[in-house]
């Protein structure tokens, strides 16, 4: 019998998991469908000579444990910028710049700045609590296992240790919406809009949707600093792949897994697209929960209740990705050219963001979208031909299913986005030599993520901690013996951080040594 552990999918979490398993002496084979590893952390060409981080375009902080233990710097991971500021764009040029707990701008009072500092410090304390919970396997409820009871106790203790005031405040706001919290904390409309964008990016949420405080905290859980890797996000995938191979793992690309073989309730291997069968002592899936269970395993191999829980995991993406090849740097009204290297956001106020979301609820794209824009070529000229630039933007909201079909709607949406950008940078449309727009449906197809949802499942209280993705699979092992989850669909969720992969590796090691 083989001792080989197969990892389905060479996304960043799959590679992290592979590296940890290989370091623990396991024989590991990573199977990636695409020709390059990295999954959503991938750089590719979108126009001749122009490279872009094709899905995730900013690194919000890998799990520091992963960076350190896998020695990613030695494996080639280098940041060209460690702490991008956020520029909240105003049509009239009265922009704000946010960096850590400071906010600056011409129309800003010292009271606004103090209020922001207080808001940000409090959110950072709560986010640090989440970070503590993220590094641990969530406890399983109702199983009667003492380690699980201890886990619940630790969770309670961690919350209590916030102190009386913070604990009450945390419990008050954890499940509510960012709109209300921003309204009661801050005055400045543009500041509130920019902060609301942080909460809703990549989610099927508007600022007024419950759970949007949780998503804001999730973004802050790794320190809330956006960085740019040299060579784009693909270098994260490359460094993790190098680390995994250095530890002894084999990585095969161009090898799509079409089926996870289950025999007598145990995962025993996989079948590839070319018909090749590969045996395994355990299978770890980096694919999202729906792909893993409903496509690769098949509902028939599962029990009815569990299959339906997976079927009902909410994961319909709302984020589109825009890539522009530019002949030169655009000029944003009243914005210093150096500030163009920062993270630019278009979210002028809270109602604007909420209204943008309204369209998505009814299968339409936003007529006034919110955007997170980066021009990575300012810091990293390797991505484009000399003197040319790349603009990469996340655009919301684009429903996974447009009511008229994306084939019909795509051109109109691209025009809306270009018009929106032109209001802030009038010369921008004239500089575009090539444009690529990825709708959630395109993201689903290219990155093999159901619903095109980056987080492999909405990050919300009902799909969080021991409920992620669903009870019964929230501790990385699943109802199918020998089958594990290691992707963003597992605790603690999405964002390029690698925590799920590292936690999953620990769970595999602990469980697979049992007789």
């Amino acid at each position, binding site marked *: 019998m083989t001792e080989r552990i197969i990892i389905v999918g060479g996304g960043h979490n799959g590679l992290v998991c592979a590296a940890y398993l290989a370091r623990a002496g396991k024989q590991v084979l990573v199977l990636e469908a695409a020709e390059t590893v990295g999954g959503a952390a991938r750089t590719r060409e979108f126009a001749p000579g122009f490279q872009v981080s094709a899905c995730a375009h900013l690194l919000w902080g890998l799990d520091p444990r992963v960076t350190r233990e896998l020695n990613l710097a030695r494996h080639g991971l280098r940041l060209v910028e460690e702490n991008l500021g956020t520029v909240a764009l105003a049509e009239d040029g009265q922009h704000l710049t946010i960096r850590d707990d400071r906010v600056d701008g011409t129309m800003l009072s010292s009271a606004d700045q103090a209020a922001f500092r207080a808001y940000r410090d409090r959110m950072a304390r709560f986010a640090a609590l989440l970070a503590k919970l993220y590094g641990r396997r969530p406890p399983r409820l109702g199983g009667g296992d003492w380690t699980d009871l201890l886990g619940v106790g630790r969770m309670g203790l961690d919350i209590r240790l916030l102190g009386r005031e913070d604990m009450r405040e945390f419990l008050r706001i954890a499940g509510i919406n960012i709109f209300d919290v921003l309204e009661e904390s801050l005055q400045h409309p543009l500041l509130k809009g920019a902060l609301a964008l942080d909460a809703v990016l990549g989610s099927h949420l508007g600022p007024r949707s419950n759970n949007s405080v949780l998503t804001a905290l999730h973004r802050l859980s790794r320190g809330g600093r956006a960085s740019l890797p040299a060579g784009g996000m693909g270098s994260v995938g490359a460094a993790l792949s190098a680390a995994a191979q250095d530890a002894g793992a084999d990585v095969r690309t161009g090898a799509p897994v079409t089926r996870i073989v*289950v*025999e*007598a*309730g145990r995962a025993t291997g996989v079948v590839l697209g070319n018909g090749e069968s590969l045996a395994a002592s355990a299978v770890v899936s980096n694919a999202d929960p729906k792909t893993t269970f*409903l496509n690769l395993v*098949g*509902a*028939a*191999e*599962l*029990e*009815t*209740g*569990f*299959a*339906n829980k997976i*079927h009902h995991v909410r994961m319909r993406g709302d984020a589109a990705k825009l890539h522009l090849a530019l002949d030169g740097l655009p000029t944003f009204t009243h914005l210093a050219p150096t500030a163009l290297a920062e993270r630019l956001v278009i979210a002028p106020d809270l109602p604007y963001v909420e209204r943008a979301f309204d369209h998505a609820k009814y299968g339409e794209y936003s007529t006034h979208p919110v955007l997170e824009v980066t021009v990575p070529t300012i810091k990293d000229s390797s991505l484009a031909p000399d003197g040319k630039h790349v603009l990469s933007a996340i655009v919301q909201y684009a429903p996974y299913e447009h009511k008229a079909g994306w084939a019909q709607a795509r051109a109109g949406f691209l025009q809306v986005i270009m018009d929106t950008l032109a209001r802030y940078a009038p010369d921008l449309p004239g500089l575009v030599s090539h444009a690529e727009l990825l709708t959630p449906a395109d993201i689903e197809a290219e990155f093999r993520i159901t619903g095109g949802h980056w987080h492999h499942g909405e990050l919300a209280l009902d799909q969080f901690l021991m409920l992620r993705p669903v009870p*019964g699979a929230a501790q990385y092992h699943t*109802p199918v013996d020998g089958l594990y989850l290691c992707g963003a669909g597992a605790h603690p969720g999405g964002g390029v951080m690698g925590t799920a992969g590292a936690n999953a590796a620990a769970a595999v090691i602990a469980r697979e040594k049992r007789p």
Partner: protein
Amino acid sequence: MTRGKEHFRETVLKTPFHSRTAPLNKLNDWHRWKNYTTAGSYFDVSLEYFAIRNSCSVFDLTPMTKHRITGADALPFLNRLVTRNVDKIKPGRVGYAVWCDDAGQVIDDGTIFHLRPGEYRLCSQERQLDWLQRSALGFDVKIKEETHEVAGLAFQGPTTCAVLKQMGLTGIEALKPYGLTYFDFQGAELMVSRTGFTGDLGYELWIAPAAAEALWDGLFAAGRHYGITPMGNQALDIARIEAGFIQAGVDFLPADVAVRPNRTRSPFELGLGWLVDFKKPNFTGRRALKAESERGSKYHLVKLDVEGNKPARDAFVYNRRKKVVGTVTSAVWSPSAKANIALASVEMPWGLSGDELFAEIYYQRELKWTRLMARCQVVDGIFFDPPRKRATPPGDF
């Protein structure tokens, strides 16, 4: 019967046999069964019961929930749904089955009729369409509730085979227990299965509602000299307890409606372990049931022979008169076994075969309540088990 968009105008539905059952219902004893009005008893429960055991008796079972299951994956779907191996239910056969939730707790029991190759009917006490549809995720299967489209009669008792022959069902005597076959009945297709809820020789007759009255008339004409009577559900209930058959909502709580923990039961805890086939690689509840089979069950269902003649209905069950260890779920004086019988759900390990238990029975004697701690003997076999129910061809009574 009113169907389709007009159903709401009638709060209670009438079965296709209503025009025949109503004049026979001398007691006007009607009750609601799955929104149909059905007879609790027609003229005398005892006489109706004795017809089941001594001549023949007709029960209108139209309200029984029926589902038609077809499609390429009908068999794998059923195998994933129920705990037993459905491969063994060949075309023309009927199998008793039980299905569970993921926790291995029984949702309902019922019978699977393999009507024609790849075409099945699942009959159940409770409505199951929701669970069946959820179970269909990933299967190429079509599920249709056909409760209203199929009229059904249970025809039970020693003279049933003779009556069906009399009615012109040539060759019916060759039908084995749990077999099913088809006849032409005045131009309609009549399906006859050798099944029932009485533990006696008997059949169930299934026909389109339009032909229901003709079937009833034909049956009663043929049975005139064979002691044919209608029966209500009270008489049937006595017979089914004698036969040791359990009933959803009575002997176990369907897992999908239970709210409190420890109120539901696994197949092992209902004495249905013989229906659990771990050789099947997957079925809903398998993991939990495998663990239970290794760890041991919390409860078991026991058949009790209770001292005295006061039915132990709803009685607490005690061990050595001190500790409550269970509850009686069904109890009746058995006229055929001449015994005071009961089914009880009892905590393990109390009442393992031969153990002595006590039932706390309250009864009134001339308006005065009396409490009785009745000694109970746990019995292994069926209370009343006549060989005629198995004989093929059945005797000509």
